[in-house]
């Protein structure tokens, strides 16, 4: 009997899609891959270290990029042993336990909200402004984050304290042309014509498809049909035709975009050996007619048009049905986007869904600055203050950005209106700075004659 049970359970564990071991509902960040147990539980034995390795496999790079304010190395120092005994911040699972729906809060935090107290109980001694503040407000009032404080640290607040709500020249970076990673020997670098199309003859008869391709950045930049519809021309031979190329084909040229896509909620199932994510599986509010077709690159970009304007708003609206998304149409950001499309305003001045949720980032590659699009739409939403530096500050002042992102109702209205609350962090930073300056001036001898 026990042998039968062992074999059955072992088989169940090895099969993706088995829910028998699912011990509790997973968070919004992991439910997509909850049936791929081994993504997190990499080994049957090993405990917290194995889980920690899994956390860092997916989130480690992000922690480095954001200059994690509480890296593990701070807590492995023996001088902090007493603190670790209270709160073992060496392990992600101390604060983020999975399968605990009743105690899971925003960002999957499963600790009581006053966790900062464990180490910063005496903060009031150094900062009297913090004396009467309850500890559950440290990370929930728009002032601090546990990991990413790049837009919230004191000197940054001071540096940007007087910036206007709207900057004089609001604009985001212009995306540079994607760089081909895999060279295709017979690719030409001039716009292609219908006669150039190297698809089988019966395929080129579809005028709609032909028209979409001719208008696309692919045809305009010499990317022919078989560049995508052949998995590996050198191996498979020029005659091999792949009717529906998958994401790996896109990835062969758009490496960084694919990396982001596979790291985000849209694509994470695909790298976990699960069928692609689809709107019916989502926990977020989706449109009833969004369907259950697995998401891939072409879900948003289209199979031949690869229209980035469409992908920037319309594609999102096909599925997303939350108040924030529904309020986009007619919002100030939408108005700017429409003006950019119409050519009334300069490129880079419009604000689409992608402008904020799939921001552009510049990186030096081979001595050239490449501006790419982050395709992990959760990258800057955990929590939303992460959006400030990469997105908001392109157009808005810091104070306005902090206040707007702390105003849930304003977010639901897709920023129609002004922030109704004021986060006092900048005021306190200025006050403290002035006090310190006065103190310093008082102890230094005056040079005035």
């Amino acid at each position, binding site marked *: 009997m026990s042998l039968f049970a062992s074999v059955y359970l072992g088989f169940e564990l090895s099969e993706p899609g088995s829910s028998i071991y699912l011990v509790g509902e997973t968070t919004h960040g992991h439910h997509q891959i909850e049936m791929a147990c081994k993504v997190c539980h990499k080994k049957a034995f090993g405990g917290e270290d194995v889980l920690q390795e899994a956390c860092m496999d997916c989130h480690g790079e992000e922690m480095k990029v954001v200059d994690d304010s509480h890296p593990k190395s701070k807590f*492995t120092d023996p*001088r902090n042993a007493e603190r670790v005994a209270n709160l073992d911040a060496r392990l992600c699972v101390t604060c983020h336990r999975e399968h605990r729906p009743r105690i899971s809060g925003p960002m999957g935090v499963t600790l009581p909200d006053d966790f900062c107290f464990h180490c910063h109980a005496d903060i009031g001694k*150094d900062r009297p402004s913090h004396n009467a503040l309850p500890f559950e407000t440290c990370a929930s009032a728009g002032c601090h984050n546990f990991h990413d404080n790049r837009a919230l640290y004191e000197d940054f607040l001071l540096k940007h304290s007087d910036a206007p709500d709207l900057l004089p020249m609001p604009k985001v970076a212009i995306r540079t042309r994607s760089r081909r990673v895999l060279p295709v020997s017979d690719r030409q670098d001039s716009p292609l014509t219908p006669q150039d199309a190297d698809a089988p003859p019966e395929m080129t008869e579809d005028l709609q498809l032909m028209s979409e391709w001719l208008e696309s950045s692919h045809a305009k930049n010499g990317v022919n049909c078989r560049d995508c519809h052949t998995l590996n021309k050198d191996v498979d031979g020029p005659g091999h035709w792949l009717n529906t190329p998958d994401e790996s084909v896109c990835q062969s040229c758009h490496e960084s975009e694919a990396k982001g896509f596979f790291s985000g909620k849209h694509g994470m199932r695909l790298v976990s050996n699960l069928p692609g994510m689809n709107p019916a599986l989502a926990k977020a509010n989706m449109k009833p007619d969004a369907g259950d077709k697995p998401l891939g690159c072409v879900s948003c970009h289209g199979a031949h048009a690869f229209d980035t304007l469409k992908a920037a708003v319309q594609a999102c609206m096909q599925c997303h049905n939350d108040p924030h998304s529904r309020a986009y149409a007619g919002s100030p950001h939408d108005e700017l986007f429409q003006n950019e499309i119409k050519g009334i305003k300069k490129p880079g001045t419009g604000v689409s869904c992608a402008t904020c949720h799939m921001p552009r980032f510049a990186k030096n590659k081979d001595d050239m600055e490449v501006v790419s699009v982050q395709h992990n739409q959760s990258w800057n939403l955990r929590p939303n203050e992460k959006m400030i530096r990469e997105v908001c500050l392109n157009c808005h002042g810091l104070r306005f950005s902090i206040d707007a992102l702390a105003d849930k109702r304003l977010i639901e209205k897709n920023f129609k209106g002004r922030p109704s609350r004021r986060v006092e962090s900048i005021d306190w930073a200025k006050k403290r*700075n002035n006090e*310190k300056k006065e103190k310093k001036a008082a102890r230094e001898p005056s040079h005035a004659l």
Partner: protein
Amino acid sequence: MKKKLKWGLSVMLILFLGPTACNTTKVESAPFGISPKVMADALHAVMEADRTVYTKMIVNRLQNEEKVIKASEHWKDDKALVLPAQMFRMGAERVAESKAPFSYSLISLWPVNKQNAPKTESEKIGLAEINRTGESYYTEETLGGRKYFTALYPDIAVAPACYSCHNDHQDSPKTDFKLGDVMGGVVIRIPLGT
């Protein structure tokens, strides 16, 4: 050059033999290998040398003398040099990540960042001692259920960049440091026993 090579070989030997040496709780008379004190002294010699070179040859020269570039706490945002104390701590964090058989940190009775004030009893007593005597201080302590050989070494203001930065910093509790002052202490901990 010969001296450098000698130190380099010593440290390599120490790092190689260190874990073996730490398997004994008898600190001063290890039956074989080297004692934790010798290991700590050697590690500190390397740390102090690197710290002095970076402070004098990079930060003080480029910032204070040649005025080519500034050093800043927010070095990434300000496109500036990393502060000597940050350089030291970053090294300590990398060592911690590598799980080497020792840890080190920089603390002070007058820290700009309050988290770097002495915490353990050994740190409090040791800092007071090295400030009083200007000499290193050795002890043993138990932290988190583990016993450590703990050594504290005076951290001296070796260049104007050290004291001018601390004296000018708005969060510095002490503003009259001068060249040669003990500004804090380097703490090296080596775990003892298994």
